[in-house]
């Protein structure tokens, strides 16, 4: 095993060369040593070593690194992104989304469809009436999460949603299927959730510190 | 004549019948590949008959040489020449009468030969089972000359094949 050149002082390229040039390539190949089967035997020794070490070595030292999927699971990775969901604070009807349609426009494969809710008098209310995402088309690129100015859409960690057919098997998720609580967001994305809360708290202090006249709703 | 030898006798007659049917099939089948396989069946049937008569070395040699080598080359040849194998080429050339006459003449001659010659069936030959050891000694002993001549012929054939194959390189 080649160890690491941390202690070597000489700078420049020579320093790395001896470590990284393959010992096999410049191994001394005396003529009589080069019997015909030598390379093949060395290969068999490697597979034998792997066979033997697979029984008692740890996974990354040559042991078995299979994860038996349904029983054992891979540790959850926080930044993993798969298929967006909407966030609501408290009860499902207080949705953060204001149906501004930026994510609908920016989505590359165009799989989001939003219509704004209008109250009795026909004046648009800043809440989405219909918010559909076609899970079959979405390529979970995470652009909707980036562009959303109101932190209302996030990428989920659920990936076991296979379905037998592409069309009319519930892959088009409507608003009620997409809604998930902000505690769920806190559970799966702790870092981003805490960052959003600090940003919100900073915005409140700024607003309290500078009492500005409230402007009109910005469209 | 207890039951076992009866069964064996029927077995032998069965294989002979099988050999005969397969031989006829070789000639009459349209698809060349099928007839090649029937030829293999004939050869295996003869090997079985040899085995039944306790000539086991001959049976093994028959299978090894004919079925293992000759048949493989015949089938190799059939597979290589594309048109020969797939299309069913007309094999009969419409001269049934001449063929029948030839057949009759042949059967008559064969019959006379079989019944006329006195087969020297001695008791000792029937009883003794020729082992491979004696065959080996015979090859190296009295029959060493024909053995060497055959090997020379085989080498000549080998060189001929190499020359033909090399010609188009």
């Amino acid at each position, binding site marked *: *095993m080649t160890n690491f050149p941390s202690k070597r002082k000489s700078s420049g390229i020579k320093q*790395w060369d001896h470590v*990284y040039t393959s010992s096999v390539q410049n191994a001394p190949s005396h003529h009589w040593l080069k019997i015909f089967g030598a*390379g093949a035997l060395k290969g068999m020794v490697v597979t034998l070593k792997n066979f033997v070490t697979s029984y008692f070595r740890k996974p990354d030292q040559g042991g078995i690194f299979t994860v038996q999927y349904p029983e054992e699971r891979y540790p959850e990775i926080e*930044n993993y*992104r798969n298929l967006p969901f909407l966030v609501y604070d408290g009860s499902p009807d207080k949705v953060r989304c204001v149906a501004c349609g930026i994510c609908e426009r920016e989505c590359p494969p165009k799989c989001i469809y939003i219509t704004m809710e209008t109250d009795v008098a026909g004046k648009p209310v800043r809440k989405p009436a219909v918010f559909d995402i076609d899970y079959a088309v979405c390529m979970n690129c995470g652009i909707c999460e980036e562009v959303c100015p109101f932190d209302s859409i996030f990428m989920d960690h659920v990936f076991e949603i296979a379905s037998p057919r592409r069309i009319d098997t519930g892959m088009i998720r409507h608003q009620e299927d997409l809604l998930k609580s902000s505690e769920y967001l806190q559970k799966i994305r702790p870092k981003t959730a805490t960052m959003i809360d600090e940003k919100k708290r900073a915005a409140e202090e700024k607003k309290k510190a500078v009492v500005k006249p409230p402007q009109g709703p910005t469209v | 004549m207890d039951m076992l030898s009866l069964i064996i006798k029927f077995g032998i007659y069965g294989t002979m019948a099988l050999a005969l049917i397969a031989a006829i099939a070789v000639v009459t089948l349209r698809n060349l590949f099928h007839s090649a396989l029937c030829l293999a069946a004939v050869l295996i049937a003869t090997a079985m008959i040899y085995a039944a008569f306790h000539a086991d070395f001959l049976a093994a040699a028959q299978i090894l040489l004919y079925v293992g080598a000759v048949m493989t080359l015949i089938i190799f040849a059939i597979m290589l020449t594309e048109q020969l194998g797939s299309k069913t080429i007309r094999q009969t050339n419409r001269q049934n009468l001449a063929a029948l006459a030839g057949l009759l003449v042949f059967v008559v001659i064969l019959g006379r030969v079989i019944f006329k010659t006195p087969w020297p069936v001695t008791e000792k030959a029937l009883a003794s089972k020729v082992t491979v050891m004696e065959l080996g000694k015979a090859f190296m002993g009295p029959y060493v000359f024909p053995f060497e001549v055959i090997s020379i012929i085989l080498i000549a054939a080998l060189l001929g094949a190499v020359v033909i194959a090399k010609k188009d390189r």
Partner: protein
Amino acid sequence: MTQVENRHPSETLEINFGPQHPSTHGVFRMQMLLDGEKICSLKPVLGYLHRNHEQIAENITYAASMAYTDRLDYLNAMTNNFAYAIAVEKLAGIEVPERAEYIRVIMAELARLVNHITVIGFLLNDMGAFFTPLLYAFREREKILDIFEEVSGSRMMCNYFRFGGVKRDLTTENLTAIMQIVRRFPAFLEEFEALLTKNEILCMRCQNVGILPANLAVNSSITGPVLRASGVNYDIRKVDGYSIYKRFDFRIPLGEKGDVYDRYFVRILEMRESLKILYQALNKIPQGEFLNKKTLPFLKMPRNFKPAVGEAYGRIESPKGELGFYLVSDGTPQPWRYHVRAPSLINLTVLEDICIGQKVADAIIILGSIDIVLGETDR
């Protein structure tokens, strides 16, 4: 008696190594005319994975098609993003802060490691080694893909680069994890080479097979390890010196004869060079912002990112060759023309010239050693 011409031409067999073939690395078809086992002619047929990537890119904004570039060469998404980011930065004149440049180089070199071991694994698979080298390679590939997942969010479809930097910063755990991989990689390479390099059967099958002479390679605009295996010293990291590659000490391995064995061994030596770059980059990575302040508003509103009218051609040394993006902008948020110079497609021009006269088994290995990915070839 006229001399009968006894040598009737043996009949040639027309075979399709079609879209569904276990070793064409995707939906690629070779129409072959065989005389026995020898190949008389070989016509590549493409288009089975054609998604008209360039027309899609002309209907969506610049930032949106960054997600589509992951699907070009789906084996290493990081280098595709890198090339697209460089092209757009050249078009719009955005500079990239120091730390972001280091992160980009680290990600690109990790992607090169992943690509080279996977290619060698599949090359051995085509040669008949029953998945053993491939699974040893996948064991290392898994560790690197876990890093990509922690950093960018997805193992293969990373979508990690942004114009002027990267989407997310590398935390200290990420850096230590990468250092761990780099530290243990030479040991893995030793074992991999012990299994393969001196293996007689591999030498028999690969040496003097599919020889690509240097002048034919240059004339057919071949780039990447295939070109360097023929002995031509042309590596865009050294030639253009884009990003911060000028600061790192690394060398360019060159082959001798340009046959399948050279292409295999040049890739192994290139992995060793990438390790040197990674080691130096991990040691010298500075603190600082990971995304250019000026491009931050465009993250929120990609619609406002309207580069000036003009054109730009950005290219990088992707593990397969020179990956270039030719962008023409007309001042609107959508590019007027978006063209990808795909190394896999152009490296295919020599496939026929090398394969003529070789055996059927060699054609499969030659295709494996040229290392094409159909996502990039068909776009």
